[in-house]
């Protein structure tokens, strides 16, 4: 039946087989300290705020979501709010989150400059402080560089734990990609890896996104990852130089 692969491609099930953003799928590289702090949030002292910063592709979103999963695994309430997408809901979006053990807010630069958001977050901070909850904030900009509308909130964020994620160096990046490929059940030979690294923007977002594309392409056409195959995927995606 499926003898002619060109005609009949397999359609992959819409189920993610990769383990998703959990701590064990994060390649820490030089970011061991940040990872260890996040794995033990209760050890960060009485200030409920932990601020995660680092350029795009250093894994902020991954770690925020991993922290949520870890909290759930310990029967705690947690949520993840990507504010680049959700800021238009307004500060009401934070309502009810004060009852949670962990609130993770991604891309906070989209809200901190706004007085009503700042005030809502300050209130959430106080509730968290009283109940022992944690507020995990992340943004590419470090808190000192951000405009924070409410000085009361600014000073509390600055006094909290600030974790800077370093981008991976070249060697670490290849190891990270190998880890991500393994987690997807892909075998990524060195020549393929080098081929990709020479042709794609070398940030982890792009690279992991491309791994996803290759994962689907390899499943649907039932082919292993080889340079010619990857070249073809790149050509189809129109991303090759």
């Amino acid at each position: 039946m499926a003898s002619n692969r060109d005609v009949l491609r397999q359609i992959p099930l819409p189920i993610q087989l990769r383990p998703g953003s959990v701590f064990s799928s994060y390649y820490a590289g030089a970011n061991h300290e940040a990872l260890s702090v996040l794995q033990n949030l209760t050890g960060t002292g009485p200030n409920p705020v932990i601020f995660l910063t680092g350029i795009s592709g250093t894994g902020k979103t991954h770690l925020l979501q991993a922290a949520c999963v870890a909290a759930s695994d310990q029967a705690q309430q947690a949520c993840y709010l990507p504010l680049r997408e959700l800021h238009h809901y307004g500060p009401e979006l934070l309502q009810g989150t004060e009852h949670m053990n962990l609130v993770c807010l991604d891309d906070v630069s989209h809200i901190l400059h706004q007085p009503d958001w700042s005030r809502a977050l300050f209130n959430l901070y106080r509730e968290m402080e009283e109940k022992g909850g944690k507020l995990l904030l992340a943004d590419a900009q470090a808190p000192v560089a951000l405009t924070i509308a409410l000085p009361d909130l600014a000073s509390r964020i600055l006094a909290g734990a600030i974790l800077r994620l370093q981008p991976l160096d070249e060697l670490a990046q290849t190891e990270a990609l190998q880890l991500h490929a393994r987690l997807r059940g892909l075998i990524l030979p060195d020549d393929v890896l080098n081929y990709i690294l020479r042709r794609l923007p070398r940030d982890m977002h792009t690279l992991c996104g491309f791994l996803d594309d290759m994962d689907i392409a390899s499943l649907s056409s039932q082919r292993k990852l080889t340079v010619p195959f990857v070249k073809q995927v790149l050509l189809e995606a129109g991303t090759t130089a």
Partner: protein
Amino acid sequence: MSGSLWNRCFHQLEAEMVEQQFNTWVRPLQVVMDGSELRLFAPNRFVAEWVQQNVLPRINDLCARLTDSSSGEQIPTVSLEVGSKPQVQTSEPTAPREAGPAQIPAKSAFSMLGGRLNPEFTFSNFVEGKSNQLARAAAQQVAENPGRAYNPLFIYGGVGLGKTHLMHAVGNTIRSVRPNARIAYVHSERFVGDMVKALQHNTINEFKTAYRSLDALLIDDIQFFAGKDRSQEEFFHTFNALFEAQQQIILTCDRYPKEVDGLEDRLKSRFGWGLTVSVEPPELETSVAILMSKAALTNVNLPDEVAFFIAKRIRSNVRELEGALRRVVANAQFTGRPITLDFTKEALRDLLALQDRLVTVDNIQKTVAEYYKLRVADLLSKRRSRSIARPRQMAMAMAKELTSHSLPEIGDAFGGRDHTTVMHACRVIKDLRETDIRSREDYSNLLRTLTG
């Protein structure tokens, strides 16, 4: 057992859904199995609406499929509401709370008061310096003689300077002498929020009784009352009741009472009936003393040069100063390296590098005020005497020079002045720098301080 069906649904959804959407909309759901009903609670209407529109049918479907009828499970009906799941009744603090034997008649009303005293904030761990001496002495007096010494005690000053610490210290001292004293620490936003809830739930009388029968009321950040007329009205009566009964009231604010816009005059004047004291940013020596004392508390060996380095670089407030120390200590503990000057520079790299680059209007106002021995509040006030107007013009000129804020923004930051006032200030300072040696010196000193 009741959670297990939901657990199965939860994990199935986790596998099916886009991860981010799952973490945003499904993970925060709380669930209660109520007989044959699976009740889902969403923290707010946005989550409820999203779940309703996008996953509720799938949840119903999964519940039907994943119900294990062989072990007697029944397919539940699924409901969705906004709120948090009802607390289990036995979690009411009944058993372990024997300490205060029937001390408070209006216990249920008293329990309405939000916020607790933080036992960490005491007089003994409050580091005194010139900048906070008066406030500390006044607070100590009040603690030893509540309701009699100074009532109300009004502590004002910038963020992170220890106002809340002093307030809690008073409360803790009163409690150590009178363990049954009814003391409430309430942030003013909380007062407003609780009052709104009381109005909604028709419990405003209990709310009033709870506040008016206190022995001491500590209200933090009263600037947040601005513009909230109904809350001010209620607070006015609470204030009067407590004041007449000679119960202690302590208030904190980020500025002098008269300077708070949107606050009723009758409240402003009452706030001035007792003693009004300010806390200022610490001088270098106090900052160093604070760092040394905090380090000693955690058994950390902090070399003098490191303490001076941190204190010099983080000038504006104590909270951030302590935050920087915690960061250095945590880094040292993680890496196992000793705290040296180089290590500290590395640990605080982000904070310091950006401080060098980042000159804010706030920072300029603080620096200029300190330089001319004024309060920031003076710079923002409406007063126009030359001793204040000149430094204010200097600060405005600095703000134009060193920040990228627009002139209207700068005017706004100086007590809501017009941008033409800022332009005028810049012209005056420019002329003065050309004609007056003293002004020229002031300008270059300030510039040096601000830009490192």
